[in-house]
């Protein structure tokens, strides 16, 4: 252990070289702030993915178009027969078709474009899958006619329409009036939170087509044998649609697999960003090493004195290692405080803008980890200068001016 007096001596040296200490601390600080911000947002995204992929979504299987972004291809059609064949696959428990169409939504002389999603209120698998419930009003039920459910953002002023929409307000969809009976919970991204939901019967009636084709199929399946169920479902659907293997225009995927895909992409992005932040830490550790080398050179004589009055090499080593670690510690503490403030503020701004899924998460380990990492950066940078200090010959050091 380092003695209290040595700590005192080190701190006074750092204080005597205030500006240099400040610059060194600042360089580590900048790296720590960056890392803290990226990790807190990364952790927030992982948490979001975990929440979305909750227990109610683990058994879900999706059939989507191969083309289009995120399977949102309105030209992709699944027929009632396709659904029946798919539903007959062993291991598929409940299945339902989902419609979506791009529509014009009007309210209070303003119009926007969004998706109208039709589903069977008896089988609300789409809600279970994304783990969202009703935040206000009630759920759709069969025979609701012109009643609709709105995404979360419609009730917030200026998010979609300048005036917030309330329960029982009427809105226009493609020029026809519908009554709002409820709002969904917040998903956290502007696209999902601006969708409009309608009962499947009403959707068919609205489009005047009793055989309106589905765009997605959502099902719950046997989780103990998910891979095989997915393969079998693919086979059923291929047969039903008269397609050869390898030429499918659809894909069947379990929701868990889909989320794993997102997680993998997220891992790559987070790793890449952290790599960039680590480069900034590398630069600051070179800077710290430089500071410490200068500090050793300036104190050659003092090192000689300490050695001449009985200071062992290990004591000299500890003094300089402590100094560089302490620089790292201060940078770490300020770094997490500022990083936390910036992330929290950034998260709040993004939330206001409707990007609630981009909200930072601050586990205690993040604070402790970042501070420890800063201390480690300082310590590692100080090792070589500290070794140099121990190698100083006391006789030559005492002669040094």
């Amino acid at each position, binding site marked *: 252990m380092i*003695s209290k007096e040595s700590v005192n001596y080190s701190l*006074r040296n750092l204080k005597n070289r205030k500006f240099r200490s400040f610059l060194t601390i600042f360089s580590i600080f900048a790296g720590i702030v960056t890392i803290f911000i990226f990790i807190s947002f990364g952790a927030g995204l992982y948490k979001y993915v975990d929440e979305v992929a909750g227990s109610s979504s683990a058994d879900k299987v999706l059939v989507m178009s191969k083309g289009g972004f995120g399977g949102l291809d309105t030209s992709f059609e699944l027929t009632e027969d396709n659904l029946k064949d798919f539903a007959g696959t062993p291991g598929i428990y409940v299945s339902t078709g989902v419609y979506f169409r791009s529509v014009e939504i009007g309210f209070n002389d303003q119009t926007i474009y969004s998706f109208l999603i039709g589903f069977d209120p008896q089988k609300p698998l789409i809600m279970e899958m994304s783990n969202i419930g009703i935040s206000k009003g009630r759920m759709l039920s069969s025979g609701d006619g012109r009643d609709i459910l709105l995404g979360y953002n419609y009730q917030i002023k200026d998010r979609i329409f300048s005036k917030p929409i309330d329960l029982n307000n009427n809105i226009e969809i493609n020029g026809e009036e519908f009554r709002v009976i409820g709002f969904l919970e917040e998903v956290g991204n502007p696209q999902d939170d601006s969708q409009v939901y309608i009962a499947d019967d009403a959707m068919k009636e609205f489009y005047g087509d009793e055989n309106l084709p589905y765009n997605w199929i959502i099902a719950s399946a046997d989780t103990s044998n998910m891979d095989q169920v997915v393969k079998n479902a693919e086979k059923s659907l291929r047969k039903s649609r008269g397609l050869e293997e390898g030429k499918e225009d659809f894909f069947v995927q379990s929701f868990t697999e889909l989320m794993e895909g997102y997680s993998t992409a997220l891992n790559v992005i987070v790793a890449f960003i952290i790599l960039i932040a680590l480069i900034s830490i590398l630069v600051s550790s070179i800077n710290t090493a430089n500071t410490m080398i200068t500090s050793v050179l300036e104190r050659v004589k003092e090192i000689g004195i300490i*050695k*001449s009055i*009985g200071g062992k*090499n290990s004591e000299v080593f500890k003094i300089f290692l402590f100094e560089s670690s302490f620089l790292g510690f201060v940078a770490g503490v300020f770094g997490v405080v500022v990083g936390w403030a910036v992330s929290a503020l950034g998260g709040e701004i993004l939330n206001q803008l409707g990007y609630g899924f981009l909200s930072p998460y601050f586990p205690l380990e993040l604070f402790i980890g970042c501070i420890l990492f800063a201390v480690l950066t300082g310590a590692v940078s100080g090792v070589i200068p500290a070794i140099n200090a121990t190698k100083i010959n006391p006789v030559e050091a*005492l002669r040094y001016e």
Partner: protein
Amino acid sequence: MKKRGEEIIRLEGATKYYHMGEVIVKAVDGIDISINKGDFVAVMGPSGSGKSTAMNLIGSLDMATKGHIFLDKEDISLLEESDLAQVRGKHIGFIFQQFNLIPTLTVKENIMLPMTLQNLDADEREERVQDLMKKMELQEREDHYPSQISGGQQQRVAIARSIANDPEVVLADEPTGNLDTKTGERVMDFLNKLNKEGKTIVMVTHDPDLAKKYADVVYWLVDGKVKKITRKKR
């Protein structure tokens, strides 16, 4: 505790060579020195005679190229650097011409430093540092930094520091070299007092009057060799 008069330090054929490029400089060339407990020894000689090198060897600050150095009959020329640091910390105190105090530590902290390095407990350190400051008449300068006190006071701090761990031997390298005559005399009186209390003092000086006035034994060095030894009868 050794009795006054017993040998405490012995240099046997101690040699120190330095390489300066291609040239080998024989700073100290096979010297024999014997110092008894309680002696006041002066090492004299012209510039470049090797007196400071000899003192560094006596004080285990430097390692001999050849020969042996015994402290209390232990051959310290065989020790590693970390063990030598222990030897210095416990058995030897240094006083330098340039005072060599740590500028960022106060008077009190400078005096305390050798005790800290020997891991003495806080109460004992505090008690000793108070005694030493009283002895060296520094109580009122306790919280001053070296730059805030006079040269004579700085040298008294250095003396206090040199005896902080109660070493048997105090080595002083031109202790009055940076002081005016009057202040120098006062510093010498303190050293003399320490010698009277039983400390062995080894002083490097080029001032024959100082050597004559205070030393029991004077080693005259020329070109790294002992040329003459003069002893004063007590």
